[in-house]
């Protein structure tokens, strides 16, 4: 049976698979959803907040979205303790670069460095891979706004819009249909994020307490990473629901209008 081949990460299975890496990705599939959308003038990260216990002390504004550097933030999905180790390492990598070169690390370079570390845990050392996938949003002078995704295998790629965690496949397919390349601005991206979250999360109505939203924009040669407050999220949800209602009404009109004119 395949069981014999998956206890050590350093071993391939007879079919050429790395089971530990795949199991790590399984673990992430059960974690809270995170999605990222690249807009023309900024980037949006949205995350499902799973720890909504009233007794929790609110020391941190957000428990899935972390600021890495002046120009980069990331959102994690998976085992929280693994995520903490990786976000710490990301921050250290960024600062080491700034110490050496006196300027912020280019986004892709930061992602690449962490992914090399993640990959090492799939090849040697006899340790298990990190059970975390990360979505990075950042800005640099080389490529402007960028969105990256990395997974336990140590692979990374740049995205216009993507999703990780629970129901990520469903979210990605909705994004594929709804996202308009180079025609989306930040506000539209925020609404799109809410739309996708409402369709993929297992709640019937969007709740501002269960969502974390963050944006990254450039203003006056400075990057602003902003975790949106609960009140503002409530406003956005209201706007989203309004738009949904309008869209529904328009659809109804079209359906009834194609038959004969309805009389109310």
């Amino acid at each position, binding site marked *: 049976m395949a069981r014999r081949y998956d206890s050590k990460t350093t071993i391939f299975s007879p079919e050429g698979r790395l089971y530990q890496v795949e199991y790590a990705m399984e673990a992430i599939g059960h974690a809270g959803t995170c999605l990222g959308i690249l807009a023309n003038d900024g980037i949006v990260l949205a995350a499902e907040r799973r720890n909504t216990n009233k007794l929790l002390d609110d020391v941190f504004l957000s428990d899935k979205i972390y600021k890495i550097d002046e120009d980069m933030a990331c959102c994690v999905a998976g085992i929280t303790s693994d995520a903490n180790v990786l976000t710490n390492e990301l921050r250290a990598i960024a600062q080491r670069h700034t110490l050496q*070169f*006196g*300027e912020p690390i*280019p986004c*892709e370079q930061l992602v*690449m460095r962490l992914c090399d570390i993640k990959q090492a845990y799939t090849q040697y050392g006899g340790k298990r891979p990190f059970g975390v996938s990360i979505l990075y949003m950042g800005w*640099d*002078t*080389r490529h402007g706004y960028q969105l990256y995704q990395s997974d336990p295998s140590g692979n990374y790629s740049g995205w216009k819009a993507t999703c990780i965690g629970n129901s990520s496949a469903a979210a990605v397919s909705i994004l594929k249909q709804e996202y308009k390349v180079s025609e989306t601005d930040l506000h539209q991206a925020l609404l799109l994020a809410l739309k996708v979250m409402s369709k993929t999360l297992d709640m019937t109505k969007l709740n501002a307490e269960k969502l974390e939203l963050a944006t990254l924009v450039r203003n006056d040669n400075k990057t602003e990473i902003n975790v949106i407050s609960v009140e503002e999220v409530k406003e956005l949800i209201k706007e989203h629901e309004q738009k949904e209602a309008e869209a529904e009404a328009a659809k109804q009109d079209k359906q009834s209008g194609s038959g004969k004119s309805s009389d109310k």
Partner: protein
Amino acid sequence: MNTGKSHTMYPSTSGTSVVGLVYDGGVMLAADSLGSYGSLARFRDVKRLFKVTDKAALACSGDIADYQFIREVIEQKVRDDVCGGYTRELNAGALHCWLTRVLYNRRSRFDPLWLECVVAGYKDDEPFLGYVDKIGTAFEAKEVATGFGLHFAVPMIREAREKKQNLSCDEARKLLTECLKVLYYRDCRAHFKYQLADITPEGVTIHDDLNLKKETNWEVANYISGYE
């Protein structure tokens, strides 16, 4: 912890002054081509100035071996960046910062690279000129020089700037060659063959094998008592 080991703390073949200035439209760097072996003018075609990337050039005075070593490390670094493709081209500011860290760390280990470097180029569309030395002292300025250049050339440049704040390319070149000429007259370890680098937003141009011997006038030597 002290194993009784020590590293050489003196230069063997060394280069003399480097002079650099920022002008209206770019940055210029000049250094002569002499590698002195103490008071012997041993190697008369040493290239102490080199292009790092399209945005940065570096010139060093001090130990030539240490210069050649750091030049090779930097050239490999640039190659790695180009091959990797995930980072942007090293600019003058980043090179200056990196060099400062390296030189300071070496001195803290009592194993210095015996150099005084001038980094010239562009950082984020702004002209950049910086100095780093063997003990890790680093600063940026509009005119920078090493060795004797600090005492002869920098005051000359500052005087010219007082008359005219923004120098044109030709004025800068004339001023720089004048500085090198004065240094050749007064610095025993200087030579008349030199290199000049001009860094503009378009890129780095290095002029090699320049010679200022014809512009020198040694008639004044006759008036020095004891010359004959």
